[in-house]
């Protein structure tokens, strides 16, 4: 028998940041597309308004990114734990999650990972967010800031290899972010991810018969966190 409990997964500052970031990135993609392909796209009324919207949205996203970093690193101090995959994630978690998405999900089996406030992301999420939030976003933001201030930051522009290198990098990084966005939105529909990002709470099924995880006695074994299935298997082995 099981009953539903609620856990507070996404605190309000993160929810506000997420949706500012999401709308900002969508506006950046649309305005950026018009800036690059003005002869085929006219989403905004004029080329100048597309540039102004792009610049404003870029500054807002850059500020919100800084806020995100400050909040997780300084206020909650959980940035490393949330975003950097640990040894177990790399050794087994990634493969397990990949197998779930590629096979188990289609067979109707449950996700091997369950989110908690301190471990919100599965190993694949961790790896993807690590690349997006620590490489793509900072790089696209920095190249954008350089393009916004070509004359005052002339030396920095030259240090990066010149304006054409920066433009090429900015464009390809933006394409990568759009590619990530497509995957991110799709994967959000595979589980209960959208509701917690809107209201903060997630409904979790809790099994009454579930006992606390036993102490592990196998020499050299490291406990796998947050994989209920795996923990159940261990429990069964112990009882038998």
């Amino acid at each position, binding site marked *: 028998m099981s009953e539903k409990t609620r856990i507070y997964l996404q605190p309000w500052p993160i929810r506000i940041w997420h949706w500012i970031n999401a709308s900002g990135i969508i506006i950046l993609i649309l305005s950026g597309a018009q800036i690059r392909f*003005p002869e085929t796209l006219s989403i905004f009324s*004029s*080329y100048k308004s597309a540039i102004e919207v792009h610049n404003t949205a870029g500054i807002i996203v850059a500020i919100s990114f800084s806020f995100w970093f400050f909040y997780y690193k300084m206020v909650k101090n959980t940035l490393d734990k949330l975003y950097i995959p640990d040894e177990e994630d790399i050794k087994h978690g990634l493969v397990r999650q990949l197998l779930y998405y590629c096979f188990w999900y*289609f*067979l109707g089996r449950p996700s091997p990972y369950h989110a908690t406030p301190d471990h919100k992301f599965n190993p694949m999420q961790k790896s993807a967010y690590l690349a997006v939030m620590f490489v793509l976003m900072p790089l696209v933001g920095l190249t954008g800031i350089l393009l916004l201030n070509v*004359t005052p930051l002339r030396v920095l522009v030259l240090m990066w290899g010149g304006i*054409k290198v920066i433009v090429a990098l900015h464009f390809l990084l*933006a*394409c990568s972010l759009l590619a990530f966005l*497509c995957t991110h939105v799709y994967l959000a529909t595979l589980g209960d991810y959208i509701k917690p990002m809107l209201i903060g709470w997630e409904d979790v099924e809790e099994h009454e018969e579930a006992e606390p995880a036993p102490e592990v006695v196998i020499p050299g074994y490291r406990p796998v966190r947050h994989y209920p299935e795996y923990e159940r298997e261990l429990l069964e082995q112990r009882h038998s």
Partner: protein
Amino acid sequence: MKPADLQKMSLLAKLALCAWALAGLIAQANAWGFSYGDQTANNQACLSCHGKTGEVPKGTYIDPQRFTQTAHANLGCEACHATVPANHPDGNKVPKADCRECHSGISEEYARGLHASKTACNGCHNPHLVQNPKDVSGQEINMICSNCHNSLEMTAKHGEWLPQSELHLRMLPCITCHTGARDYYISMYIVKSKGDSRFGKREVAEYDELKTMAGGRPIVSLIDTNRDNYVSLEELRVFNRTQTSLHLYGMMTPATVSHKFEILDSRRNCSFCHTSGSGPMQTSFIAVPEADGTFLRVPVEKGAVLDALYAAPDFYMMGSTKNAKLNQIGLAIICCGLIMPVGHGFVRFLTRKNRKQKEHQS
């Protein structure tokens, strides 16, 4: 021979003589109108004094080297200063021709523009130095404008509506926006970093500096390595990769120059340049400085400024200079992002019964 035949022959001879004389006159007229002949010797008489700084008042000095390169030198001094008195120099000013006598079309065009009430032809052009705009760099054209229009003031004024105004004013000849030209090309000129550093302040490279760098060879050989008077994309890439202190700056320059100066509303619309497509970006030239102050105009292979990285690394115009290969790579990246939603989504749809069954069981 009959007397009548003799009379006929005499008439034919007279007609032939008239035709020859008329042909001679036409030829002479053509010679005056279209082939000015060699006026060097005639000019030399004037330049023997006016070509020396110490011998004439400052305002009447004429740089012989630069004057010789002008179209006016071919006409000769007397074409404009016809009535030089026999007792010259007598302290009186020598009369000079009105530009309108030859350039009536340009004069009429100029009279319709904003400059007409501000200055005359000589406000911008020194007739002893003037050259065709195609034969000079875009930066050289702007130097004429900056004689009256203060650069800082203009940057501030344009900055009221133009984003990154300093960058725009540095990368465009004023006439691109302030005359109603239709066709454009990219005019490139050589700049040099101070202290031979890649990051040093960049200024227009002087002839002497470039000559030294070329090591006795013509300056153009720094870029046009095979000396065929044509710069290929590969030659440009090699130049940009190997030269640390020399760089090429480009300007979108009108192919035909109008003298009607105006403030055109269409140029306030960014799309005039930025949605101009790759067409005007295909043609480009490099203005290489010569010893006499003129420029050698070297054509560049088509599409230099559209190259992804190295053919013209310092020339970028949003929307117009996008590289096709980069677009393809970008599209490929986006398609990779669609593999999961499309591929996984399709299998998800096919296996939807499995999940419903499990939910029902639980």
